[in-house]
């Protein structure tokens, strides 16, 4: 079993080999496009649908931080999305906290959960890591099914959106959208910053060759754990925001199918690419809403996409694009 990243042997995506300046110039135009699209989209598309995309895009970016840059495949990220959602919803509804504090509560919960799960799971590598995270997430699912404050099968419904900083009411969808866009962009740039920092370089070194990184004096486990907690916290940020936007925290968000969904988003968009998770999330959310009327076929299409991606399309959409354009994206 190897400790290498998923893409290590396939040269799937461009590595972080581009110099910071090169990367900056290469990313400038796509980032401008992303921001313009984000600002303009709600005037053409239903904002609630876009907010769903943004929440999942942030979730996928957070997941990609772990899989794409550290090579750790977590099969339990729904735990952080859903766990944060429950706590944020509880904080907003029962404790009556304002929007920003409720979201912070959820994010902090996810970070703590991430610390606990990561601490246990990094004891094993490769597919064991995947199985352990999956099992712990399933345990959390059963906990949520039973715990009194989650509302069991009903979930927490009718969560108030509240007011931003106590003044700005978020009941209007357009206003809510721009807050969610701001949260997404914060998460996106935060991850971009982490990936291109010296810390991010060490993460990539651990992914490429863990024993070598250890022999150079880096405590690989510490780096992995910090990356895991960061990824969990950002997933939590996405989950908490999602719960408040949709005024609902439910069991679906902690179930293993959600963990699978985010993997598919990242795989389809492009592992270890900067824009891949965003593109993947947008595509999957669109496909799902398009197929929503067809019931069980969503699962079939997801499964089929998995198979096609793994067999024939391992670079993903953005990975292929970046290969054609010869620039990191």
């Amino acid at each position: 079993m190897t400790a290498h990243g998923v893409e290590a042997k396939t040269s799937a995506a461009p590595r972080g080999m581009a110099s910071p300046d090169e990367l900056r110039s290469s990313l400038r135009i796509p980032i401008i496009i992303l921001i313009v699209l984000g600002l303009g989209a709600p005037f053409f598309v239903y904002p609630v649908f876009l907010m769903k995309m943004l929440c999942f895009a942030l979730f996928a970016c957070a997941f990609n931080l772990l899989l794409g840059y550290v090579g750790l495949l977590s099969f339990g990220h729904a735990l952080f999305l859903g766990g944060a959602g429950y706590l944020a919803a509880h904080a907003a509804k029962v404790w009556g906290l304002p929007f920003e504090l409720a979201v912070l509560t959820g994010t902090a919960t996810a970070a703590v959960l991430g610390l606990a799960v990561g601490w246990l799971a990094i004891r094993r590598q490769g597919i064991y890591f995947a199985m352990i995270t999956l099992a712990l997430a399933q345990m959390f699912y059963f906990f949520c099914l039973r715990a009194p404050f989650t509302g069991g099968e009903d979930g927490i419904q009718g969560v108030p959106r509240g007011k931003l900083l106590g003044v700005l009411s978020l009941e209007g969808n357009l206003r809510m959208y721009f807050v969610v866009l701001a949260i997404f962009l914060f998460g996106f740039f935060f991850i971009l910053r982490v990936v291109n920092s010296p810390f991010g370089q060490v993460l990539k070194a651990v992914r490429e060759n863990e024993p070598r990184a250890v022999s150079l004096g880096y405590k690989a486990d510490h780096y992995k754990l910090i990356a895991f907690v960061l990824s969990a916290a950002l997933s939590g940020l996405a989950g908490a925001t999602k719960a408040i936007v949709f005024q609902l925290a439910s069991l679906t968000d902690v179930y293993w199918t959600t963990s699978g969904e985010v993997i598919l988003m990242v795989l389809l968009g492009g592992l270890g690419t900067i824009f891949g998770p965003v593109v993947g999330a947008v595509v999957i959310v669109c496909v799902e809403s398009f197929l929503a009327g067809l019931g069980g076929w969503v699962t079939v299409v997801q499964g089929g996409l998995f198979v096609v991606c793994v067999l024939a399309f391992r670079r993903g959409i953005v990975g292929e694009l970046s290969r054609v354009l010869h620039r990191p994206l």
Partner: protein
Amino acid sequence: MTTIFGVPIQALFGQLLVGLINGSFYALLSLGLAIIFGLLGIINFCHGALYMLGALLAWLMLEHLGIGYWPALILSPLVVGLFGMLIERTMLKRLRGLDPLYGLLLTFGLALLFQGVALNYFGVSGEPYDIPPQLSGGRNLGFMFLPNYRAWVILVSVLFCGLTWFVTERTRFGAYLRASTENPLLVQAFGINVPRLITLTYGLGVALAAFAGVMAAPIYRVSPLMGGDLIIVVFAVVVIGGMGSILGSIVTGFGLGVIEGLTKVFYPEASNTVVFVIMAIVLLVKPAGLFGRAT
């Protein structure tokens, strides 16, 4: 009524029996996973889905072709085994040399695919499957009532686990298998057709899953969702036992089934999570698993 630790003795033995039944399926499934992992180096995520397909196939044969339990017990694993070999030949084979995580992702996709298709045709609720007449009824053991079919399931599971152990540890085929797990290149140099061995092993592993599925059909309902959650528990079982030894898989499977059953008696709230809690404890104490070799 006689009680032990304040629990009626009937309830205790009843749950113990349920635990042994669940343990049988944990053991059979984790055994298949371990054999496949040994040779292919991947975790077969669609194991649960193929277990479900095995049960579904038995139900379909009974419903549409009038083929009963006994032929289904052989036919269903055969069909699923051949189907598995097809999967190995057409898909898994192409992932050799890549990171094993890709195998996990591919088989996860297949699991979703199978489960989704089954859901579309059969719905969530599932169908009942009758216990074969030869095994209906039960006997009173004095301290508890033992349904014949449940006794049969435990017996056959133990037998099959033993058989698998015998085949891998005591036969020529098993020797090839173990040698290929250690060093496939060298075994190939000795003139053994390793790719064919891999295909065969994968087929056998999933046939074992389908076999478990047919046996489970009369106990649980035949439902498209029967494999999804089960496989996650089996993953935890595999993490606890470590995939290093066949005997380890068997012991861990049955043991955890029994512990789960006892938890249902003494602290029912935790019965769903006890296996995962044990997994966490084992990871803290012995990260390589109870029977695993350190990696």
